[in-house]
């Protein structure tokens, strides 16, 4: 019986070391009242990287710091900032690393032009192949 009570008591314990002793920031888990603003904030949050769990966006992350960032994003947008202003506010502090939608610059331009270059290359290759096939047919005929 004592053992059972001890186990039962374990159910009600809280971890001693927790970052969650405090309530979350006001807009960490609450949407903005204006749906248009919430939509803007939402799509920006999906493109911002969580600082604690670096492979997640702040929209996906449960880390307390991601909650604080979501709240900042929503509050700034509610106050009239554009999503790009909020993004550059964070880039100024953490660098391009913080956004999943990197700006075009000296380091990132190959990323941006690579798809176009590959597509042109593919069309050129395909064209060569089709043409060869046609001449083959002509030779045969």
């Amino acid at each position: 019986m004592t053992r059972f009570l001890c186990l039962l008591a374990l159910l009600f314990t809280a971890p001693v070391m927790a970052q969650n002793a405090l309530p979350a920031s006001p807009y960490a888990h609450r949407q903005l009242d204006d749906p248009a603003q919430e939509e803007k904030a939402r799509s920006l949050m999906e493109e911002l990287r969580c600082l604690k769990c670096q492979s997640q966006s702040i929209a996906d992350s449960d880390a307390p710091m991601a909650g604080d960032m979501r709240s900042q994003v929503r509050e700034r947008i509610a106050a009239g900032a554009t999503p790009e202003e909020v993004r550059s506010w964070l880039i100024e502090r953490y660098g391009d690393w913080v956004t999943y939608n990197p700006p075009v610059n000296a380091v990132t331009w190959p990323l941006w032009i690579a798809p176009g270059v590959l597509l042109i290359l593919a069309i050129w290759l395909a064209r060569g192949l089709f043409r060869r096939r046609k001449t083959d047919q002509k030779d045969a005929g």
Partner: protein
Amino acid sequence: MNRWLLWIPLVLFSLFFAIVAGGLMRPKDNIIESKMIGKPIPEFALPAAIEQRPALTTTDLATGKPQLLNIFASWCLPCIAEAPQLLALEQAGVSINGIASRDTPEDIANFLNRWGNPYVRIGTDVRSAVQLELGSSGVPETFVIDGNGVIVHQHIGDIRKEDVAELLDILEKAG
């Protein structure tokens, strides 16, 4: 000419393989440096975290003398590990300002009673707002700030014994 073209796919594949293998073998680097180094400390005003120490605002950090700004939390284990080093820096005459991240006054007071209080001021940052302003991504982190209130250095993670001399050196150069 065609014979040489035949090798292109293999070369491309080897290149791809080398890049992927290189990426897999390189140890993961999670450290994100603040881009605020070299810039003045952003405007902020944090309320006092405990009764025994005054609050912390931007103007407290531009006093003509280089200082340290340490971000800590009672829930952070590496902060316990760096506590002796902060006390050593305080002994060496460094003025250390604290920012308590996402913490309650009782927990902060208990933490400082147990591991020592090296701070001249402690502001409480319950929503990580100032941490985001500073470009800091975790606790503990320590910033060296020069007499004009400009951030000159960021130390990410706990301060180990071997880091104390380096920080003193940077503080002296910032003076």
